[in-house]
């Protein structure tokens, strides 16, 4: 067991020697991996932030239920009690036509005499906050409310949120697709680098084979090299993301006065950072494993 770890430590050591002996090209590889992973990661970060905002908007959305003009108070009471018993409704606010009319007049500085409006044109209304955003549940609620006597119109003004969500969903799919393509690109790039390294270490591979090394023994330093490329690249991705978020948020705060609001990107939590680094390491490991295996198989020896 101790020998197993000793062997792996030696392979790791050998990989580190290779990385440090070609520090410039190793660093270039870190940057290639880091920047390539930065593209889908930053896209997903922005989409996640926007999705978070859209989720918050969805729960604050209201259903507006307008009543018939000639509705009686007992009907209003009946509707209110029916609404308060409905499970998907979080909060109900009743606004009488008189209150609404007063508010409108004061807001617009209207004088009924000046406008020629002889009577209150506004209906009584309920403003309902929902505790769900499930489309089916909302449609069922709307259909039920329409059947109640005294209900004139119902408006659910959350269509734009749905559109935003659909757009975000499409962007997510696009980013996932881009991510897959970029991962394939990374596998090819890392694999090719490792393949070239096997050619550089051709003599070592040949000698090792001749004196009884198994292919997995020979492969090990190359796999550790790929793993370390992934680690370096992953750190660069995380660092670049953090830097981008800081720069974006500072710019957003500076433009607050001009735009009348801010959009602050949330920083990545440590689990997300770890996930990015792990993915980068797995890509490095996977690419180097297959590239080294293919190359090493080709070396058969003795001259």
């Amino acid at each position, binding site marked *: 067991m*101790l020998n*197993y770890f000793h062997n792996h430590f030696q392979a790791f050591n050998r990989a580190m020697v290779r990385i440090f002996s070609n520090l410039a090209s190793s660093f270039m590889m870190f940057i290639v991996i880091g920047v390539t992973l930065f593209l889908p990661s930053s896209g997903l970060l922005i989409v996640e932030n926007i999705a978070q905002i859209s989720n918050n908007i969805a729960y604050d959305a209201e259903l507006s239920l307008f009543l018939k003009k000639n509705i009686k108070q007992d009907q209003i009471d009946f509707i209110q009690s029916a609404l308060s018993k409905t499970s998907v409704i979080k909060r109900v606010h009743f606004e009488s036509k008189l209150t609404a009319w007063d508010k409108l007049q004061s807001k617009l500085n209207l004088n009924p005499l000046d406008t020629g409006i002889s009577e209150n044109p506004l209906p009584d209304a309920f403003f309902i906050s929902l505790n769900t955003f499930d489309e089916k549940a909302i449609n069922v609620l709307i259909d039920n409310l329409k059947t109640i006597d005294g209900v004139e119109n119902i408006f659910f003004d959350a269509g734009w949120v749905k559109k935003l969500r659909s757009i975000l969903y499409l962007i997510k799919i696009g980013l996932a697709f881009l991510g897959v393509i970029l991962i394939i690109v990374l596998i090819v790039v890392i694999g090719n680098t490792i393949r070239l390294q096997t050619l550089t270490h051709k003599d070592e591979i040949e000698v090792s084979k*001749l*004196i009884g090394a198994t292919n997995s023994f020979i492969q090990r330093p190359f796999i550790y090299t790929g793993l370390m490329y992934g680690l370096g690249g992953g750190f660069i991705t995380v660092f670049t993301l953090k830097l981008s978020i800081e720069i974006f948020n500072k710019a957003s705060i500076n433009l607050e006065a001009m735009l009348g609001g801010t959009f602050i990107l949330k920083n990545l939590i440590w689990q997300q950072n770890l996930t990015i680094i792990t993915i980068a390491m797995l890509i490095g490991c996977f690419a180097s494993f297959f590239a080294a295996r293919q190359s090493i198989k080709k070396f058969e020896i*003795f001259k």
Partner: protein
Amino acid sequence: MITFDKVFKRYPGNMDALQNINLEILPAELVFVTGPSGAGKSTLLKLISSVERPTSGTIVFENRNLSQLKSKDIPYLRRKFGMIFQDHKLLYDRNCFENVSLPLDINDIEGLDINRRVRAALDKVGLLNKEKVMPISLSGGEQQRLAIARAIVSRPSILIADEPTGNLDREYADEIMNIFYSFQQVGVTVIISTHELPITPIKHKKVHLIGGELKDQINYAKLLS
């Protein structure tokens, strides 16, 4: 120990490298495989170390038919041999100690044992004082001695040397041969391919190949005894 029975080896292009080889190599025997270039000497060694497989016939080593050996078992077979080459095949980015310790790393030998055995092997070939030296700064003879140290460090039962003195001066060549004789004296089977048979008072077997055929097989060990 190693038995060749009606072994043929044909390379692509219908070139017969070896034809109908029947040969027996006994434990602790010193065998010189001689013959001109293209005689099949290297092919014979390749077949023993399973770098090549015979086209037909059987090669038996420790009751195992090497021609039917699975690929995954070949590295474990090669660990039983110590191999030495004309061009040394040293790793020039590693020092002498690291070159010699490579077979022990492959064989999963523990760290402390590695240190002891590498120093013993270097001592045996007279390079103990050069363990931190890079091979490039050694002379041809020293490089070959380093290659021998690497071959013996894992204590193989068979040493296979493919023209080990081919690139060396007479003085160095004799030095290398003396090292081989010393191993044969302690019970190691030594198989050496060479163009010319060295003048030696040691009991040995000569296997002479011409054009892939075994032309001559003389056991000087029996003659001398």
